[in-house]
């Protein structure tokens, strides 16, 4: 089991059916759903919100004192989380306070190679902290207060799409800030002239 856990932890997010090996959650934390859990209920890839309630596993041995980093390591994944979505939903759930959506761990499967080839099924909440997004993930979202990073990167070039998509997220100039300097050329050339934008 230890070998399997080690092998799993060494895999990338994409190789573990896009579910994290470890997840930090807390009350009032901003999160984003990373899978289409239940689009009908409003839980789709990209849904944002805050964690309104955490229902711990009943086997959980009560609250201990936080460790050095100020966290509590849970023995069991919580049974259920209640999400307060940023964009309110109309769907109601029996026994759940109005405006909240229940989330349960999502099951994922993938293969690992230890001494033999093993199929692993794992369960984790399909959530990610949502204090920052990539430009791609931000596309289509409205963000009330936003800080945009258009600074030069060492590994890849930004193109005009990065700038346009990010600058358009907020509702006005007094609701946006830029994290650092940017290449003015990004906003002075038509995207079609950008060799990296059009293949």
């Amino acid at each position: 089991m230890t070998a399997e856990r080690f092998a799993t932890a060494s895999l990338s997010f994409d190789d573990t059916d896009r579910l994290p090996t470890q997840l930090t959650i807390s009350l009032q934390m901003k999160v984003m759903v990373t899978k289409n859990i239940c689009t009908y209920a409003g839980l789709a890839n990209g849904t944002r919100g805050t964690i309104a309630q955490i229902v711990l596993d009943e086997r959980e041995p009560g609250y201990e004192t936080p460790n050095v980093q100020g966290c509590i390591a849970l023995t069991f994944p919580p049974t259920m989380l209640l999400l307060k979505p940023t964009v309110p939903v109309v769907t109601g759930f029996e026994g759940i306070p109005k405006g909240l959506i229940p989330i349960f761990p999502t099951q994922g499967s993938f293969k690992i190679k230890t001494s033999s080839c093993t199929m692993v099924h794992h369960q984790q909440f399909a959530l990610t902290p949502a204090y920052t997004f990539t430009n791609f993930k931000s596309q289509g979202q409205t963000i009330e207060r936003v800080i945009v990073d258009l600074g030069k990167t060492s590994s890849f070039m930004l193109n005009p799409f990065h700038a346009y998509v990010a600058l358009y997220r907020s509702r006005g100039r007094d609701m946006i800030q830029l994290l650092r300097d940017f290449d003015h050329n990004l906003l002075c050339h038509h995207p079609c002239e950008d060799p990296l934008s059009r293949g």
Partner: protein
Amino acid sequence: MIPFGSSDILVMGDFYQFLPIGQHKKALYMSFPFNKCCEIGRNLYLQFQTVVLLNWQMRITNNHWTHILHRARTGDCSADDINTIQQLVLTDSECTLPDFGNPPWDDAILITPRKSLQTYWNEAASMNTVIPLVTLNTLSTQKTLFSKGVC
């Protein structure tokens, strides 16, 4: 034969935003089809006859800013536009720094193309919340599919 089984199809998009992820050369709208299949796709695309252009951004309420962003979209920013945008850079001497410690700016979200920055930023913000709980995934049913060397 009527395409799409005679269902009504509505295609939406903004060519100034990101291209489809992956093989964008195979997108339906590409003028030079990549292969036979793309050629069929291109033909289907050309059958969309009714085009509605949405040319006003509804999210932004300030006219002046909307116009600047409209020009940014097509890369037509003037020196004045660039200056207006440059003043938003937090490290710029002309920038009016917002109060990040209080509402509404304490709620600000960062957009960055850097994966590593995203990881650090999210971690730092998560640790700043009331008693963070760390939960590990549960590994359940595992069965050996094939012996070594086969898979």
